[in-house]
């Protein structure tokens, strides 16, 4: 014992001992990879309430990804198991769900939130508990905060502006009116950014017509917008309000160009609105009708088979949440902790398995390359938008 102590006391032997200790700590684990077993991810669903249509899509996409991670043995003998708790897009219920997930030591990470205020109310809880949170739908700036808060939401703002510019370049309007969900700060920011760019291109603002997210009757708002006599009307509102406003404009005989936003992309919108949405340009990062990569094609086919419906952008974002968490887990060894997973997710630069044709993480925020400007065809397919002649 004395002799051993003397040996490690010498600098050379101390260095060797340290290397050996590092090797002992790292080598066997690297050889083993992630310890086999099920790893729980708490998923706060929004399958009821006003946003249930989108909520169901996120949840479907996430379930499909979890099954694929297991089936393809992406994590070897390990798999991701989603544990769902319903919030109905209600902040109080989301907070309660998060607290329950955080209190459960078997939950490795949490995913949640379509609405930014709800995500904002959950964020301090996960930061305090050092638990990774991956947001699937909320868009407010400043939500991502590595190493514990990440967002797989494809931010629509830059894509809105790109779409508006493409439309303006094609139809050369002199004036534009905006229909805005005034009680939604995210849409207000998106509209202002686009408005600034369009005014810079010489398109005067005829006026802004405010509606509220909970509104159901848009006849008066459509009348007000048409009364401004604009060459183009751009709609910045949530799904129900945007659908209602566009339908009301068409019902009242507005025949000029209307520009929508990404909320028009899910299939139920065409089913609900029918021909009123045909030809209305809007941006998408993902469309089941315009897929090129093998991953995207496989995703569309598997989703269609499992849910008997085509995936939409929300399904894609839910899908990417699970693949992002899986990628972080893959870089870990043994039984990962929440802190280790958070650190691993912070190191993810490029998403390996994605359906957009290119996705990177910047400061905890997912970003895709390129913007598809599309519209619904009379047959109910999403097709590249073509300017009216």
């Amino acid at each position: 014992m004395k002799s051993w102590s003397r040996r490690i006391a010498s600098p050379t032997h101390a260095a060797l001992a340290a290397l050996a200790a590092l090797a002992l700590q790292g080598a066997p684990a690297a050889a083993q990879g992630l310890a086999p077993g099920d790893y729980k991810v708490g998923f706060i669903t929004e399958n009821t309430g006003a946003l249930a249509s989108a909520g169901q899509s996120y949840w479907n996409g996430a379930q499909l990804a979890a099954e694929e991670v297991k089936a393809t043995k992406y994590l070897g003998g390990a798999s991701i198991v989603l544990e769902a708790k319903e919030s109905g897009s209600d902040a109080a219920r989301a907070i309660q769900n998060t607290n329950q997930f955080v209190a459960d030591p078997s939950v490795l990470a949490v995913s949640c939130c379509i609405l930014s205020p709800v995500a904002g109310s959950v964020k301090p809880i996960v930061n305090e508990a050092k638990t990774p949170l991956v947001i699937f739908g909320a868009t407010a700036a400043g939500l991502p905060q590595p190493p514990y808060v990440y967002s797989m939401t494809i931010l629509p703002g830059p894509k809105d502006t790109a779409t508006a510019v493409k439309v303006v370049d094609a139809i050369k309007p002199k004036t534009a009116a905006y229909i805005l969900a005034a009680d939604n700060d995210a849409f207000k920011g998106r509209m202002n950014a686009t408005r600034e760019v369009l005014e810079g291109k010489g398109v005067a603002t005829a006026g802004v017509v405010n509606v509220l997210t909970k509104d159901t009757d848009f006849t008066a708002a459509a009348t007000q917008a048409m009364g401004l006599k604009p060459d183009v009307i751009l709609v910045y509102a949530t799904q129900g309000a945007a659908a209602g406003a566009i339908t009301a404009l068409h019902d009242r005989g507005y025949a000029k160009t209307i520009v929508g936003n990404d909320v028009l992309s899910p299939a139920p919108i065409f089913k609900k609105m029918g021909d009123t949405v045909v030809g209305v340009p809007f941006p998408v990062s993902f469309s089941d009708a315009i897929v090129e990569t093998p991953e995207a094609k496989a995703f569309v086919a598997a989703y269609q088979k499992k849910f008997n419906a085509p995936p939409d952008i929300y399904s894609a974002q839910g899908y990417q949440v699970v693949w992002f968490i899986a990628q972080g887990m893959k870089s870990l060894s043994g039984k990962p902790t929440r802190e280790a997973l958070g650190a691993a997710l912070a190191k993810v630069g490029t998403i390996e398995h994605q359906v957009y044709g290119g996705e990177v993480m910047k400061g905890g925020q997912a970003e895709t390359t390129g913007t598809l400007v599309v519209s619904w065809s009379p047959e109910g397919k999403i097709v590249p938008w073509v300017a009216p002649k």
Partner: protein
Amino acid sequence: MQLFLEQLINGCALGSLYALFGLGFGIVFATLGILNAAHGSYASWAAIAALAAVEQLKLPFIPALLIGVLAGGLLAVVVDQVAFQPLRRRGTGMLGALITSIAFWIILDSLAGTATGQQSLSFPRGSYPGAMFHLGEIPLPAMQVITIGVMLGVTAGLHLLIRRSRFGAAMRAVGWNQTAASLGGVNPRYVVIVTAFIAGATSGLAGVLGGITTHNVSFLLGEGLLLKGFAAVVVGGYDDVRGTAVAGVGLGVLEVMSAQYLSSGLRDGITYALLLGFLLLRPRGLFGSLGFSRA
């Protein structure tokens, strides 16, 4: 001026929906003594039934509308007999009925959410009159004309029924005192059932027409009408359907004009300020009689 007139018509059409809904709501309160929070659910279910008639049975507009109205009326009778009749028999007050109606509101809305897959659906274009008339330069969609016309017709019909018919006298007698009414030869149970049906049917009418014009058939449809319909009843007066009609249309016009000329954010604030003002300063409403005790 043209914009003002267009918005005036929009306000009248929107207010006609509030008025139609408020008519049934007010009749139930005046006759049965129930502040029925589940009344909005009848509108949601009527719209769902009419939509199903269009999509599943491929029925045209008028038969689908009648199915929706019938569904609203029958649902109101079932809820009344299951939820309120036992309370009536035990002589519980308004509070018990209100709490029970809230429970049925939650149940019926949850079921409506399940029936629609938690989504907002809409009537297919072509399944309802979509023509656009023109009054000079002013566009007049067919559904707005129908909504305003139906509201005027139903109001006149209900007014005549309540004020000029034997059944109306029986309704008023039951509303005043059920025991005295039965001593006078009125069958209160029969009056209650028919009144519940009329109330549910008018709510259903508002639901179907509202579902078509707003392109929103969901469990939230009735909720939107409930508060505005209640405001129309309070402002118009509980015991006079003409007051409810005038107040409903007034609220619709006020809502549209305040969004056009002030701010959309103030719309609901103005409506509820008006409601509060009437409750404080003229609780019997515009047309309500002085002797009406429930206000």
